[in-house]
């Protein structure tokens, strides 16, 4: 009888055939073996005598022969010298994310093993493979254009994503729609005008990140995932604000050409960091003050609650924008000029816009005055003026926190669109 070398692995195939499971046992056993290792497989089914050598031939394993014994036939072959997957790297095994004390498993805690290695520069050939997976070489290049970590990253992004998923709400059920009572017409009209304005701004806040998501390399998946929560938030805000305009006998009101111009210059941004700066730090940051103003002066509990919930969401977006600016500016303080230029160029495009649409200003004043009440209108208008200067102050504070100097902050805040967003 022919003598075979001592095999590196002996697979007990029982009555399995090549087509119904034997190959799965073989692959598992062969995975850790080096090239040219001798593999033995004991199998009793007669078809194995034909199918195993044929499989060896097409897979470039060297079939060596078989030996019959009392426990069945043992087939021998030498493992192919070629890599089954074109890579020398091996995947992680044995990693374990830590659980929080309450048993929860948080996204920020998944930085274990290979996942932790966020590349400073990602290659486009890792495609849709999750960061941490072993990617076979020879995969096609994808058209991702944002491959630099500094162009999108924020240290706190996983925390913010965690907060976002935990704080999703339902605009159909979580708002006390049944507490909506008829309002005097000027007040209802003011609310409807503001809802129209908020909605158009929310569209831009949805479309801007949406435009960048397919361009960001999935190696920066926390950013992509966070932006998706942002898009969902904006979608819900669009829903809630539109519903409020339609729910109480009024309807959607005017959309000013100047507002559209302002929003279009935002949507036309081609650089993620510039867009994030203009949208999240300056625009949404300014919106926090606007939403608080409407919430404070809302003539009904529904409007107040929608604005409160939207403000909580927007705060997260502002935090992401600021965290990204901190990361971006920390890479190179000279990056400041890039951001300043973006603000300046946008301002140059909309020199005709000197103030927020008069209808929006008036609506805010009517809300602050509690109605179209001659006695209280001057006070309402004063509150709107106070709001605008408060917006400027808060913008400066956020710019300082994001890593800008006091001088830079003043200049940028001054150049920000009077349209708020």
């Amino acid at each position, binding site marked *: 009888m022919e003598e075979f070398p001592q095999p590196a692995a002996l697979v007990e195939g029982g009555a399995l055939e090549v087509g119904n499971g034997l190959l799965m046992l073989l692959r598992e056993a062969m995975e850790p073996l080096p090239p040219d290792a001798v593999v033995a497989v004991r199998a009793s089914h007669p078809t194995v005598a034909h199918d195993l050598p044929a499989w060896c031939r*097409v897979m470039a394993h060297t079939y060596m022969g078989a030996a019959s014994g009392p426990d069945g036939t043992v087939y021998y072959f030498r493992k192919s010298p070629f890599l089954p997957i074109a890579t020398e790297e091996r995947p992680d095994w044995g990693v374990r994310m830590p659980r929080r004390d309450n048993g929860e498993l948080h996204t920020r805690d998944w930085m274990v093993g290979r996942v932790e290695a966020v590349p400073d520069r990602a290659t486009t050939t890792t495609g849709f493979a999750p960061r941490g997976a072993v990617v076979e070489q020879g995969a096609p290049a994808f058209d991702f254009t944002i491959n630099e970590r500094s162009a999108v990253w924020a240290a706190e992004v996983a925390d913010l994503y965690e907060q976002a998923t935990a704080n999703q709400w339902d605009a159909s059920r979580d708002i006390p729609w049944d507490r909506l009572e008829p309002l005097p017409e000027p007040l209802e009209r003011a609310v409807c005008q503001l809802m129209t304005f908020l909605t158009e701004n929310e569209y831009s806040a949805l479309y801007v990140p949406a435009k960048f998501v397919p361009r960001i390399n999935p190696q920066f998946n926390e950013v992509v995932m966070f932006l998706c929560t942002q898009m969902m938030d904006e979608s819900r805000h669009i829903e809630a604000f539109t519903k409020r305009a339609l729910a109480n006998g009024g309807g959607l009101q005017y959309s000013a050409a100047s507002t559209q111009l302002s929003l279009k210059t935002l949507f036309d941004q081609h650089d993620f960091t510039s867009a994030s700066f203009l949208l999240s730090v300056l625009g949404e940051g300014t919106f926090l003050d606007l939403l608080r103003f409407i919430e404070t002066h809302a003539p009904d509990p529904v409007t107040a609650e929608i604005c409160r919930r939207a403000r909580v969401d927007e705060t997260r977006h502002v935090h992401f924008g600021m965290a990204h600016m901190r990361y971006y500016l920390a890479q190179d303080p000279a990056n400041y000029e890039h951001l300043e230029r973006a603000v300046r160029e946008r301002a140059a495009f909309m020199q005709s816009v000197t103030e927020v649409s008069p209808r929006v200003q008036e609506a805010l004043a009517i809300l602050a005055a509690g109605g179209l009440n001659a006695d209280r209108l001057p006070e309402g208008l004063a509150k709107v003026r106070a709001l605008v200067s408060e917006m400027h102050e808060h913008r400066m504070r956020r710019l300082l926190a994001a890593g800008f100097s006091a001088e830079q902050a003043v200049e940028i805040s001054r150049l920000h669109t009077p349209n708020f967003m």
Partner: protein
Amino acid sequence: MDRPILIGAVAYDQRVVPIWEGMRDYFREAGMPIDYVLYSNYDRQVEALLDRQIDIAWNTNLAWLKVCRRTDNRCRALAMRDVDADFKTVFVARTDSGIQSLADIHGKRLALGSADSGQAAILPIEFLREAGVDAERECRVSRFNLDVGKHGDTGTSELEVLRALRDGEADAGAMADSTWIRQVTEGRVDPTQVRAIWTSPGYCHCNFTVLEDFPEEVGRNWTGTLLTMTYDNPRWRELMDLEGLKRWLEATPEVMKGYDSLWEAVERQGLTRNWPS
């Protein structure tokens, strides 16, 4: 040679184009540019080689024999795929047919592939004869003469053989072991219904054929360049997967003995009568 070496191949499938575009890239990068011409059938390609319209023909075993015969053996093979050196035919049978050996096929319904397929028609007749079965007289033979001229390359006739077995139209059939094992591993075969019952000895399949006066040194260089293509380089892995090989082999005299069995089968079956001489 002061021009790119021109290689002929038969367009038996759409994937032939990416294969040869890849080959062209490979040889250009290796500093030995080639170009290729596609033919619709092997007879056309053999004529082109004989007329010196191409330098090298990527031939099936049957096309190789035709060149040998037409040139009175004044030709040689340079290289082949690893899978071409020890090619095999399997006979498969329905489990309910009672067939367990080639001899059992006597009197049964036998499905064969295209008449010009070495692996699925010509050699199977020969293997049965060696086992004492005169298939043409003693079996009810169904032939699936699809894509004639492409020498069984498309594999469609072999899949028809398998379908005939599955549908109960035949008791046994023959095909390349590589076709069979792909169907098995991809889960397209119910092992309780159809299974392999016999595997042939190895024989040779395709090779790169040149005429006798193709310069020795150019041939050596070309073969040497081809043999350095490695499956572990992701750049060429796709091409090699499409062509179904893991490495290229030199066509040594020892390896070339693998064409003897087809020669004998072709002679015995009188197929050369229809070949131009």
